[in-house]
């Protein structure tokens, strides 16, 4: 099927006229039909073929891109997977989707997510859960579970997700895809339904590291509509692909966390390839990520309680009774942590500990060029797993949350495959702020010298 090509290969073949847009979309439509039961998309763009035909002379030539349903898309329903926005058709595009369209990408549909991006399972979606294409008895992770599943099932060529604390990297780890969470402020948040404004960050979910770099090239950069977007010039991220990692100092963190003993045995051998490629690998001691869970929980709930206030029932048709359990829980907790008399012991204290994490990473990056860890403390959980635990997401994202609350970039690459369950483990590669290129180089080197990428190693698919 043509839709199983990577972004880079698709563009190459389209340029060389080895395939046509019509053929590509015909295969895609067939796959969408076959895999409808995965419940990847909340809304499909029924004009996708027409839209694609208009993009002949653009960088992306009309390739099909899946977009998480919390990006506002002009004239295409945007729900954030909550029925509060069931009838919301934005009149404007988010900056990222605007740039994507300008580059010639076609938004073929809006992918499922945990409602309002609250969660790490896609089970809190009010449009039903998404299944993991690698093993439908398991969850895809979240909150960008729909986008990760769309990539894993080849129901797009590449996808956009957004991460507040793990929402790009964790589903990528569970679905065996690449997920790049850029530095906070590297990619505009304008038009992305706000969750926790101080950590929200859009980014690519793709089949290969090279694809992620290419997509990032077209969505990153300063945006006058987002005051928190950075004026720092962007790199040509594709230039980082294929670069040598010789001499880089890599610090391995979060290996001594309780409960990771089994995974340690699977993960550690994967680090050897870095040494073979000339990098230095050693274990490093970082601040306990459990504390980041507390910080993130308080900061995120506080911001959520304010950010969701606009859905007050006056506009958008549906009132507050349409909020799901998880959203209500977060609004209540956040209202509490910001309240007079409690803000000091919760919100302000959390911000102070957040600063400690920033300082701790600064310390680590004085010694190491790159930090790596497991992305998630386990393989994809079984469906229904999130329903039992209010803190499900926070625990699944524990290893990523420290870098999220500090704004660092990170990229997930598949680093192990369990042939019995067909499920993956992911490695999180982190660098200092604005050094996405270095993370891309390391991730690309790893991907090309290990057997774990499904698209580079066809026999596994």
């Amino acid at each position: 099927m043509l839709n199983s090509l990577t972004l880079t290969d698709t563009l190459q073949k389209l340029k060389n006229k080895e395939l046509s847009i019509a053929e590509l979309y015909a295969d895609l439509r067939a796959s969408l039909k076959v895999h409808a039961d995965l419940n990847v998309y909340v809304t499909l763009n029924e004009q996708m073929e027409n839209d694609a035909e208009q993009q002949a002379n653009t960088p992306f030539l009309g390739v099909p891109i899946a977009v998480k349903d919390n990006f506002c898309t002009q004239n295409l329903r945007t729900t954030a997977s909550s029925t509060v926005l069931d009838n919301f058709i934005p009149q404007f595009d988010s900056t990222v989707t605007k740039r994507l369209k300008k580059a010639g990408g076609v938004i073929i549909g809006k992918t499922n997510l945990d409602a309002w991006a609250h969660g790490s399972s896609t089970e809190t979606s009010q449009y039903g859960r998404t299944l993991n294409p690698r093993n439908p008895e398991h969850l895809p992770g979240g909150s960008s579970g729909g986008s990760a599943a769309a990539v894993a099932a080849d129901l797009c060529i590449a996808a956009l997700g957004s991460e507040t604390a793990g929402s790009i990297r964790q589903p990528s780890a569970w679905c065996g895809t690449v997920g790049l969470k850029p530095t906070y402020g590297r990619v505009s948040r304008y038009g992305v339904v706000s969750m926790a404004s101080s950590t929200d960050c859009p980014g690519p979910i793709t089949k290969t590291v090279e694809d992620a770099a290419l997509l990032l090239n077209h969505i990153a950069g300063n945006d006058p509509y987002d005051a928190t977007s950075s004026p720092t010039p962007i790199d040509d991220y594709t230039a980082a692909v294929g670069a040598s990692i010789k001499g880089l100092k890599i610090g391995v963190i979060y290996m001594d966390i309780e409960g990771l003993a089994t995974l340690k045995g699977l993960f550690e051998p994967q680090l050897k390839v870095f040494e073979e490629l000339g990098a230095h690998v050693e274990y490093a001691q970082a601040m306990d990520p459990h504390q980041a869970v507390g910080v993130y929980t308080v900061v995120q709930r506080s911001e959520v309680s304010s950010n969701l206030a606009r859905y007050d029932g006056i506009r958008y048709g549906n009132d507050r009774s349409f909020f799901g359990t998880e959203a209500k829980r977060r609004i209540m907790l956040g209202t509490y942590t910001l309240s007079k008399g409690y803000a000091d012991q919760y919100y302000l204290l959390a911000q102070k500990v957040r600063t400690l994490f920033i300082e701790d990473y600064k310390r680590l990056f004085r010694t190491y060029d790159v930090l790596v860890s497991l992305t998630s403390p386990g393989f994809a959980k079984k469906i229904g797993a999130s329903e039992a635990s209010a803190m499900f997401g926070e625990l699944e994202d524990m290893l990523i949350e420290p870098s999220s609350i500090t704004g660092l970039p990170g990229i997930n690459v598949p680093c192990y495959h369990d042939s019995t369950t067909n499920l993956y483990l992911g490695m999180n590669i982190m660098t200092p702020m604005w050094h996405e290129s270095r993370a891309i180089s390391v991730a690309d080197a790893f991907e090309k010298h290990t057997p774990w990428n499904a698209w580079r190693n066809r026999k596994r698919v």
Partner: protein
Amino acid sequence: MTAYQLVCGMEVHAELKTASKMFCGCKNDPFHAAQPNIYTCPVCLGMPGGLPVANKKAIEWTIKLGLALNCKIHLFSHFDRKNYFYPDLPKGYQISQYDQPLCYDGNLETEYGTVRIRRIHLEEDTAKLQHKTVNGKQVSLIDFNRSSVPLVEVVTEPDIISPVHAKAYCKSLRQILRFLDIADCDMEQGGMRLEANVSLRSAGQTELPSYKTELKNINSFRFMEKAVAYEMERQAHELDTGQTPIQETRGWNDAKGETFSQRVKEDAEDYRYFPDPDLPPLHFTEEDINKIDSELPELPAQLKARWRTAYDIEPKYAEVLTEEKETAEWVEHIFALAKTQHVLPATVANALVNKKIAVQIGDAPSTVLAAVVQLSQTDDVSDAQISEVVQIVLAENPALVEQYMAGKTQVFGFLMGQTQKKLGKKVNPQQVRAMIEIQLQLYNHKK
């Protein structure tokens, strides 16, 4: 009866007249919009994903106002979210400033005393609600043209000691806003909104009273003066009868000449302020502030002082002539011209304030000056001619003459006027006065 002392502080909101709104690029012109909801975008409508970007001009202007009011400026400041629900607030929170306002610790001199400025902060205005009947149904409509218009809030210490002081403070503040050319302060439209916190304490006490009444939604300085005066009486009465006035918001009913309860506040509201994560903190350097300071125009107090030294203008005249910036600029041109033509600017001021000459603001200075000069010029008329006319006037008004003789000297003015009218010329009033006095004496003798 206890003697009470007014304890009053003010909170004044003014919309800044920047070209665009506070946090988006929409046009800032809510009062002249041809239709509702034409100056809107995803940001000021509070749409999902809409993000604020702060208007630099509005920030600069707020600092300007702070400097004009002798405030200190916070070199580190930021915007906060004030969370509350109201249909005119599309985001469910207002972007305002909480613990780090742009300006603090200033003061404003008025003729009734100094008022210390506690803080000046910058925030966004809300949308406007209209309650109407459409097709027989009562509906509330929202106009977002005003949503996110820049709004400064100037908060004073409780230094206002009398109703007239409250009025003078508001007037001076508006004058400064207009001199800085940063706000129109259209009171009718709500471009400037006055709130006074009013309470009383026993004379001689220094502690703040345990209660306060908020006077709100008052759209004229005069009404504010009246409302504060009314509140003083009302609260004094309550205190005299052993009650503590309740914590509430009151408005002013001018027809009845009294304040009325609008809303009773049971608990202090919790707005759950926190720094807006969508807006990076603001950092300024001393140089930034000095630059803004150096660009301050001449302010009313400075202007009045200069007029005093340069033109010998009395403060009471200067007060009137500087009330509006346009008037002050116009008058300044006339004063300058007067000096070159050996006319006293003080004479010009007197003529303008007492409306002795028929001119309009904007008239050419030379025209105004000619009118002033003409005031003091008289036609050459002989004493005999005047006496003749006076005799006629006296003959025509025997009753008045009788009254005058009986000691009712006020009628003299009427006789003056009649004589001047009949003469039909500009005669030196001193000359007319002398002739009337002589004729009255003669009249008396004849009798």
